[in-house]
Structure formats: structure tokens, C-alpha cells
């Protein structure tokens, strides 16, 4: 998948664990893992908005095109 989601860098900057992020977004740790490992085929805008709100970042900070 040419679109890559870099959550680890932001999680490290915000000193937050994946579990805390998943709970904050309202998705399961499994679903977050699908996102982190690049297996996701699509992401909802509502999920992207929730990630940006919790990590206090812009979509461009976590989305990258290879």
C-alpha cells in the first residue's frame, strides 16, 4: 500500500501507548494494529479526526505517500 501511516513517531512524541490511543479513539487494539502494520485498506475520516485530536497533530504528520 503506497500510503503509510506513521503512528509510532507521534506516539513517542506524546508519550502515549497504543492501548491508550486505541481507547481514546474508540477502536480496538486489534484495529489499531491493522493500521500500524499497514494492513488497513481504508481509514474513515472520523477515525483520522479522532487520531489527530488525541495526538494533537495534522493528518500530514501521520500520513505519508511512498
Amino acid at each position, binding site marked *: 500500500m503506497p500510503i503509510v501511516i506513521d503512528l509510532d513517531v507521534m506516539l513517542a512524541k506524546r508519550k502515549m501507548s497504543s492501548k491508550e490511543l486505541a481507547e481514546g479513539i474508540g477502536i480496538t487494539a486489534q484495529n489499531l494494529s491493522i493500521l500500524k502494520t499497514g494492513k*488497513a485498506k481504508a481509514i474513515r475520516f472520523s477515525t483520522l479526526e479522532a487520531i489527530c485530536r488525541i495526538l494533537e497533530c495534522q493528518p500530514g504528520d501521520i500520513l505519508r505517500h511512498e
Partner: protein
Amino acid sequence: MDTIQKPSRRFEILFRFLFFAYPVFLLVTWLAMTFKGADPNPVLDFSLNIQNLNIQHEPVLWQRLACFGATMLPGAALMYIFHSLYRLFGYYGKGMIFCRENVKCYRSTALGLIIMQILHFPEDALISLILTATNPKGQHVISFGMNDTNITMIVAGIMILVISRIMDQGRKLQEEQALTV
């Protein structure tokens, strides 16, 4: 999910029973059937048109067993259909609705249905030959035939093949949905 799983389990049991019962039923029918002076078994007469064969002697054991073997040509295809159907309803009973295995079951059922109609040709020919084998010279019969039921079943098989493609699309949509966060 209950509206699918509960009846599916019952159908799974039904088709599993039919898979084992069908050949036994056929064998018993061929061994017990009377020919002379009585109407042949309507279940078999439906596809075989035995009345037109001019069977002059009550068939002996080898003829009955050979006819059973010939009937098992499309019969094996029907057993394959029962096998595919009990696997399909088994998956539905477990709550697996759109999955690769289900698509395979639909395809197997469709192919089984089509092949079963094709196998009726050699079945008819063999049975007519076997049943008239003990007739006097010049009165052996070999019969071929196709009726509207065969055509209808072939059309039904093609329709089920199309349905299997629709189920495959459903599977792809479900897989994509599962990987949408």
C-alpha cells in the same frame, strides 16, 4: 444471525442424511422393483421411461445391480451436490456467511447440477441396454433422451454459478470492510 444459523443447522443435518440415504434408497429400489405386469417405480420412471423398453423378463440380480451402478452415474453427482450443500449450511450454521469456502460450495453445487444432467445420457443408454439384455435377438434397445427437466436443471446450475460470483463480490466487500479502520 439466529434466523440464519438455526435453520442452517437443520439443513446441514438434512443434506448429510440425504448424502448417505440416497444410494441406499436407490439400491433398495432397484432390488425391490417389479417390472412385469405392474407400473414401474414412479421415482425411477420419471427419468428413465422404463415403460417403453419392452422388458420381457423380470430382471435378474446382475441386471438390477448393474442398473443401480448406471443410476449411480448421475447419482454420484447428486451425492456431490448433497455434500456441497451440507458443507455450505455447516458454514452458515457457524455464522460464516461471506467467505471463500461458501463461494466454493456454490460453485460445486452448480457444477454438480450441470454434470448430473450430462450423465443422464449414459445412464439412460446403459439401463435400456441392461434391462433388454435378456430379450430375444433383435429386441435389444438402447435409448437416449433429454427432457425439459434436464434443460431446467442446467439453467438452474448456470444461475447458481452467477450467484456464486455475487457471493464472491460480497466476500470481497466484507474483507475490505474488515480492513477499514
